[in-house]
């Protein structure tokens, strides 16, 4: 036994030595990159306003240089052995050419706004609860990494509004967050979405245009290189749906994690052709097995067997993948044909970060308002900060709701919930969701546009401070929060009076939901998404 131990130690020692040698090589390469100013050095602190134009021109000049692939010569060779684990954090952003996309202070500003207005927070929050919970960093609910994940996804949903948040993105950001800080992860996500080598935007944008385009090309190459498998899949009526997950996350969760990292290293260098080639490579390497599978066994193979053990070492897989890619390249089949102009766009067509056009003064007053609302809620022991989420056409000048009887803290309908330190702390970073339209148009209580409503709507503050709960009771509906059982009063305002008769209003579907992190949703009428269908 002693013998094997020393043998293991020997193997381990060699492995570590090899890794150290590789790290040195990569560090040299990174230096080479930096001398070339490729892809970027950390930009200087934000310039004074007048300099912006000059800086923009400079950046454009630099971008022109960078679009010619100025890559260190040995990168394409070394990438096949993987980026050394320690250096992924500094190499990945370079590979994604993040400097072409990064803008100073944008992330920070987006985040401030996302906390106020992101429409996707709820779905994001649901999914964070289900992203890499087995990984140490993401294990604990609302722990640092989970907060970062929420922040990046919420900010991005405000930045690239055509994609917003789509399931599958949380795994990608979680992967970035294992190596990078929040802001870097944000820009890496964006680079991955829009840079011409990856355009993941095309996968995640509604309608999934790139998925269709890649699927078509994949069937073509499968038919060419593995005709027997192609026919077999056809005969067994095995649908190509597994490609969604393979491609949206570049094999995250679909092959063992160590292999996923190697694939990501390559994916970041070579671009989306890796997705096609690896899909083909899976079939190539497991050719014989697959031709015996029916739909049950095939799906088990895809979603279980190869996620635990691919059946070959990572190096073997990469070697085979390299062969596959070279073959495809020489046959000019490595890249899928470009999207046709009649297809849905695979890159953003709308301005990025439209919410950034809102002035900070506006945002600040909103934040101040929310904070004071929180503290009022605290002082009256309602213990929650209510915010609204409402249907597009029912939200103009809407007075949303008020905690029930705010000036009677001992109200029997609301059990006073003592707030823990933890809760108070979290309140500082409360993330809320408000209808964007209302905020963009007539944003805060002092806005004269809001005076069109009844007295109840002109100033939200007055709703809390002055409304006796019994007054105009036909305009007030009390609802129980679905999660906490707390009672919330919904006050009907002018726009509701216009929309509904009193009878209808009493029956219209109004729901209050509270998420675990103290976000309250009030939904009035049917839901956007639902009515769309």
């Amino acid at each position, binding site marked *: 036994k002693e013998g094997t131990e020393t043998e293991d130690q020997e193997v381990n020692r060699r492995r570590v030595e090899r890794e150290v040698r590789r790290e040195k090589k990569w560090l040299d390469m990174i230096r080479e990159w930096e001398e070339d100013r490729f892809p970027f050095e950390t930009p200087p602190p934000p310039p004074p306003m007048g300099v912006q134009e000059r800086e923009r021109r400079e950046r454009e000049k630099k971008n022109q240089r960078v679009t010619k692939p100025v890559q260190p010569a040995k990168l394409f060779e070394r990438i096949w052995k993987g980026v050394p684990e320690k250096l992924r954090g500094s190499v990945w952003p370079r590979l994604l050419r993040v400097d072409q996309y990064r803008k100073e202070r944008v992330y920070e500003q987006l985040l401030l706004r996302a906390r106020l207005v992101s429409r996707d927070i709820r*779905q994001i929050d649901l999914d964070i609860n*289900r992203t890499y919970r087995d990984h140490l960093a993401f294990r604990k609910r609302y722990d640092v990494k989970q907060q970062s994940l929420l922040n990046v996804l919420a900010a991005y949903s405000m930045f690239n509004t055509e994609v917003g948040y789509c*399931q599958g993105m949380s795994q990608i950001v979680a992967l970035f967050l294992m190596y990078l800080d929040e802001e870097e992860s944000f820009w890496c996500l964006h680079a991955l979405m829009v840079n011409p080598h990856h355009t993941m935007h095309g996968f995640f944008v509604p309608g999934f245009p790139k998925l269709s385009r890649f699927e078509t090309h994949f069937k073509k190459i499968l038919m060419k290189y593995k005709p027997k498998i192609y026919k077999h899949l056809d005969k067994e009526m095995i*649908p190509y*749906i597994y490609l*969604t997950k393979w491609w949206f996350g570049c094999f995250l969760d679909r092959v063992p994690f160590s292999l996923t990292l190697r694939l990501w290293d390559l994916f970041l260098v070579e671009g989306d052709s890796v997705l096609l080639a690896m899909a083909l490579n899976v079939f190539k390497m497991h050719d014989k097995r697959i031709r015996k599978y029916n739909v049950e066994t095939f799906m088990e193979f895809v979603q279980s067997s190869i996620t635990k053990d691919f059946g070959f070492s990572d190096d073997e897989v990469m070697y085979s993948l390299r062969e596959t890619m070279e073959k495809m390249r020489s046959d000019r089949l490595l890249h899928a044909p470009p999207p046709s102009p009649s297809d849905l766009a695979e890159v953003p067509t709308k301005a990025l970060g439209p919410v950034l056009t809102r002035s900070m003064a506006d945002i600040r007053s909103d934040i101040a308002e929310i904070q004071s609302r929180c503290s009022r809620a605290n002082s009256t022991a309602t213990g929650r900060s209510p915010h609204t989420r409402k249907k597009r056409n029912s939200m103009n000048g809407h007075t949303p709701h008020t905690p029930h009887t705010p000036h009677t803290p001992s109200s029997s309908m609301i059990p006073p919930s003592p707030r823990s330190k933890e809760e108070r702390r979290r309140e500082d970073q409360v993330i809320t969701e408000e209808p964007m339209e209302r905020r963009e148009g007539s944003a805060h209580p002092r806005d004269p546009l809001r005076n069109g409503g009844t007295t109840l709507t002109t100033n939200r503050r007055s709703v809390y401070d002055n409304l006796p709960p019994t007054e105009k009771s036909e305009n007030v509906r009390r609802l129980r929060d679905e999660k906490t059982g707390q009672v919330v009063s919904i006050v009907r305002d002018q726009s509701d009076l216009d929309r509904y008769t009193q009878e209808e209003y009493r029956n219209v579907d109004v*729901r209050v*939901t509270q998420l675990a992190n103290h976000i309250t949703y009030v939904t009035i009428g049917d839901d956007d998404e639902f009515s769309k269908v």
Partner: protein
Amino acid sequence: MDPSGAGTSNDEFKFKVVLLGEGAVGKSSLMLRYVQGNFNPRHISTIQASFLSKQLVVDGADIDLSIWDTAGQEKYHALGPIYYRGSHGALLVYDVTDAKSFDKVKMWVKELRRALGDDVVLFIVGNKVDLADSRTVETEMATQFATSVGATYEETSAKENIGVENLFELMCSAMVSRARAGPSNRGPSPNGGGGGTRRIRIVDEPTTGRKCC
């Protein structure tokens, strides 16, 4: 009829069932509870449809049940037809503590009736009944709705393993009855005799431009 099927050779059926419903209502958990008998509170969100199968004997029939699980986020709705095409049954799942998820069920009923007609066996499933305190969708309302659209209503808790086995057995039983009624009988009535017929009806929607399978 001998449920074990011993001595006689049973009818054999191969059924495809699809789980549909809003995100995080418990679709995957129901499937995993039924097939693997466990519950993982840290289950990951579904992107690609996942798939599990199970063999069981119901009403003297050997059933090979394939269960397809789908992504719940609205944005993945477009892929729906690929998943439910050729299904014999659909489990439309909602969260009894989330009324919005029940609305989504109503929408799926419409879509499935339009795409698959009356042949498809629909079960509406109120999941998470263990969270009785925060319940917002009442049994009565859900039952009434189910009856009005020719569906069956069942309640489950994947977490506490309430009603899950029963749900799938009832579903299979309904599909067996419908299959035995034969392909010519396209009425909603699941009754009728006849031999073991295996039926796969594929309905192509002219409106969907997606290629499939």
